[in-house]
């Protein structure tokens, strides 16, 4: 017997309810030790501030909790299950040694305010990671305080602003290419800069003539992703930097795509003044379903006075400590020192690779993207034939003729056992399919991916409805997002 749907991993089909629907009075998964101090009369201590009722909080047993979350987990796709080719997200393998070392007692349980004398371990981790990232980026100094990439962007732009203010003019706007991530313009707005769009040329790169005409002394910085979101290295990068610098502007680099560069080329060497990294992309810390991230910001010397405080310093006796006396600092962007647990993981990743491993990683990431590009060229439309670095962007132009769009192809890919690529981004490519395999994928896995993509292209020709109705193999079929937005149900309520 022949099946029309291809083999795909089946999700557990149990209809796991909400935890609240399993709750009943008397069930418990907790136990406290006997109190070694006298009991207290809570109403006497708290008076009107005493809480009487915890509302709809659940009461369930430990096995129920384990089963609940284990079942839920089986409804997720994950890097651990297969290729996750989300362009611009760098979904690489998350090494388990990182998780192990982050849980070592003194590292997991250090209090941020414990005396410096007993914080030397954490401070050394911060210092060593900072040094590694400075060397990798070719910059002069760094802050690890920002909690994520967008937070890093904000921190970077705050420093840009402080730098210009120190020169007597904060300037008015930030230039942002039309291929940029949405966080770039949103960040510029948070730092009170106007956003001016910069168009791309026919190669998908910054249009130098446009930049020259738009670059004035009102422009504080250009926020550039390099390689850009098409996976294309901005070949005129130094010309871009020169145009900015000639008018006193700064070059900000969004380091989202740093996985294409590590060990091969350093932003600090090609004119970048300030940039952020995403430890949860390039440096293998897990995405965890949407975070935590970490967004260190590396800068050139001229911006150093403006770093967020505190800054790690070495005392005269060789011990490490925090310096809070930074009169020109932009201030704090977060309480304490940043997502320290992510620093631990990123440092472990750097140590596991070393200089040769990091270079190899970059080479493999670029090789993999080009292998996929070659495999799918002809089957899918390649809007820009400029050489690709770590990711490649196709469009759904050929499939759109049959009424099948990038999102449909993405959903069908799920039936073949893969996570979709990034859809409909960058905005300059209508119907974009943005594919980033990372270095983690083997040739075998990529061959399967290419076959799946080709098979879907064939289905589009023969039976487009199958693709339009995809996915067919998941626990839920396509969800009604319009309904969700029109009548938001954002929490469970008892019936």
């Amino acid at each position, binding site marked *: 017997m022949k099946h029309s749907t291809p083999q795909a991993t089946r999700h557990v089909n149990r209809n796991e309810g909400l935890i609240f629907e399993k709750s009943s009075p008397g069930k*418990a998964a907790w136990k*406290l030790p006997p109190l070694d101090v006298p009991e207290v009369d809570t109403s006497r201590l708290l008076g009107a*501030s*005493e*809480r009487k009722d*915890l509302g709809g*909080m659940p009461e369930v047993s*430990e096995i129920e*909790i384990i089963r*609940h979350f*284990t079942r*839920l987990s*089986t*409804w997720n796709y*994950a*890097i651990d299950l297969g290729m996750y080719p989300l362009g611009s997200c760098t979904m690489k393998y998350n090494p388990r040694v990182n*998780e192990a070392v982050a849980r*070592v007692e*003194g590292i997991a*349980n*250090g*209090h*941020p305010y414990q005396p410096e004398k*007993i*914080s*030397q371990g954490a401070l050394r*981790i911060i210092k060593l990671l900072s*040094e590694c990232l400075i060397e*990798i980026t070719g910059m002069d100094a760094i802050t690890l305080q920002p909690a*994520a990439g967008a937070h890093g962007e904000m921190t970077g732009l*705050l420093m840009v602003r402080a730098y210009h203010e120190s020169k007597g003019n904060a300037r008015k706007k930030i230039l942002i290419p039309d291929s940029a991530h*949405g966080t770039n313009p*949103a*960040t510029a*707005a*948070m730092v009170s800069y106007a956003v001016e769009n910069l168009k791309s040329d026919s190669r998908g790169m910054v249009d130098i003539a446009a930049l020259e005409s738009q670059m004035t002394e009102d422009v504080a910085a250009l926020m550039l992703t390099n390689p850009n979101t098409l996976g294309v290295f901005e070949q005129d990068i130094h010309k871009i930097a020169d145009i900015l610098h000639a008018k006193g502007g700064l070059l900000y680099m969004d380091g989202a795509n740093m996985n294409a560069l590590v060990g*091969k*080329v350093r932003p600090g060497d090609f004119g970048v003044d300030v940039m952020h990294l995403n430890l949860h992309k390039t440096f293998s810390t*897990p995405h*965890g*379903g*949407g975070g935590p*991230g970490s967004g260190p910001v590396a800068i050139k010397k001229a911006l150093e006075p403006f770093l967020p405080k505190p800054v790690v310093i070495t005392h005269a006796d060789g011990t490490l400590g925090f310096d809070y006396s930074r009169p020109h600092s932009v201030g704090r962007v*977060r*309480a*304490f020192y940043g*997502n320290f647990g992510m620093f*631990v993981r990123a440092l472990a990743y750097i140590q596991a690779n*070393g*200089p040769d491993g990091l270079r190899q990683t970059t080479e493999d990431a670029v*090789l993999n993207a*080009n*292998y996929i590009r*070659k495999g799918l060229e002809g089957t899918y439309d390649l809007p820009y034939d400029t050489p690709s670095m770590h990711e490649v962007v196709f469009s759904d132009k050929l499939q759109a003729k049959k009424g099948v769009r990038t999102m449909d192809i993405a959903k069908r890919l799920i039936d073949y056992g893969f996570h979709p690529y990034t859809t409909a981004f960058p905005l300059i490519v209508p119907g974009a399919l943005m594919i980033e395999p990372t270095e983690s994928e083997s*040739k075998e896995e990529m061959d399967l991916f290419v076959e799946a993509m080709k098979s879907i292209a064939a289905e589009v020709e023969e039976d487009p409805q199958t693709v339009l109705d995809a996915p067919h193999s998941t626990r839920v*079929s396509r969800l*009604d997002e319009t309904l*969700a937005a029109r009548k938001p*149900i*954002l929490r469970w309520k008892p019936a």
Partner: protein
Amino acid sequence: MLQAIGLPSVDDLFAPIPGEYRLNRDLNIPRQMAESEIVDFFHQRSRENGDGYTSFLGAGCYFHYRPVIIDSLISRGEFLTAYTPYQAEISQGTLQSIFEFQTMISELTGMEVANASMYDGSTAAAEAVMMAVRLTGRRKVVVARTLHPEYREVLATYATHQGMPLSVLGFSADGRTNLKELEGAITPETACVLVQSPNFFGTIEDVDALAEIAHKHGAMLVVSIAEAVSLGIVEPPRQADVIAMEAQSFGVPLGFGGPYCGVIATREKYVRQMPGRLVGQTVDKQGKRGFVLTLATREQHIRREKATSNICTNQALVALMVNIFMTVYGKVGLKELAKQNLAKTAYAAAQFAKHGKVLFNDAPRFNEFVVQTSEDPYAINGRLLGHKLVGGLALKKFYPELGNAALWCCTELTPRSAIDTAVGFVAESERSVRSAKEEIEEVTR
């Protein structure tokens, strides 16, 4: 693979990068290490990092017990190595758990809706204030001095370029925000009043009174909650318009300050001005219940410079820890847990009061209190450290007006013996200061 691509060498892949910028040397970073060496390296760092000490530090980061199933469950690759749940059909695990998280945070805070998480309590507070600014169309912000000093610093950073003038509100002798001063500080341009409860001193604010004054002037009340465990026994600030919370206490390791879990909760009518991701319930084509990220038109990937915030990546896995913790303790356990914190703290405060001066006794507190000593707390803490005890946080840096004061914290994990030892050191310090004083008096007499 190179052959398939049609290139002779890997170097050719990097041809787009102008030759003069290519790095033709090894990065100057530590050599490649074996897994055993990496593990050893971090064990060494751990030993240099307060391993084996009993600590009385709180101040926004609390040492509570973490049930082991938290790590068992979050270590499942399907949670750990998944991306943001944009592809709903294969992200129902993450989406449903966030929906449960939003529900429990709403229940605990007494609000109608909560988001999927923010970076931490400090940035959540700053974003909550910006939300109030958008909602009221006013720009001025009144901030309590009893808000965590580092949260205040973060807010100041965020506010600088948003044209949001901040004014700081002092506290009364009971450690609570000064209501009279608030009456004077609030103007028709005030967008919101931001307070923390329990506040930085552990004192529970009179939220009803604060809300009444704020609302009377058309301003919003934003309440920051830094110690989530308090919600088990302390009435939540139901009169607040926005709550910005740090949920670290719910199963998140101290981790030298992060990653933690911020979250914003508010009323339904304000949801479209709320920053951050939101999960909503919907149905699939067959009518089956499912969950999706929703109301994305507030967010940067859709609205770009007009978004409510630039936040993208949040703290999803940490929110899952929080979620599991809340599920484990649940309706009864959270209350019992909070009661133990209250009992330990009441005991410790009473013991300290016998020898030093415990401030702010006229208002209820949760699990922190301020002890004033004759001697500089740094000196006392230095001696405690020799006994593997980390004393309370010296407050001179943040509140010089309180003199030799330190902020002490007890949780369910603070053993009575450690409290007694610490109290002993404070008693000893007071005795020696007293006898030194008496000696001087005797000499001068």
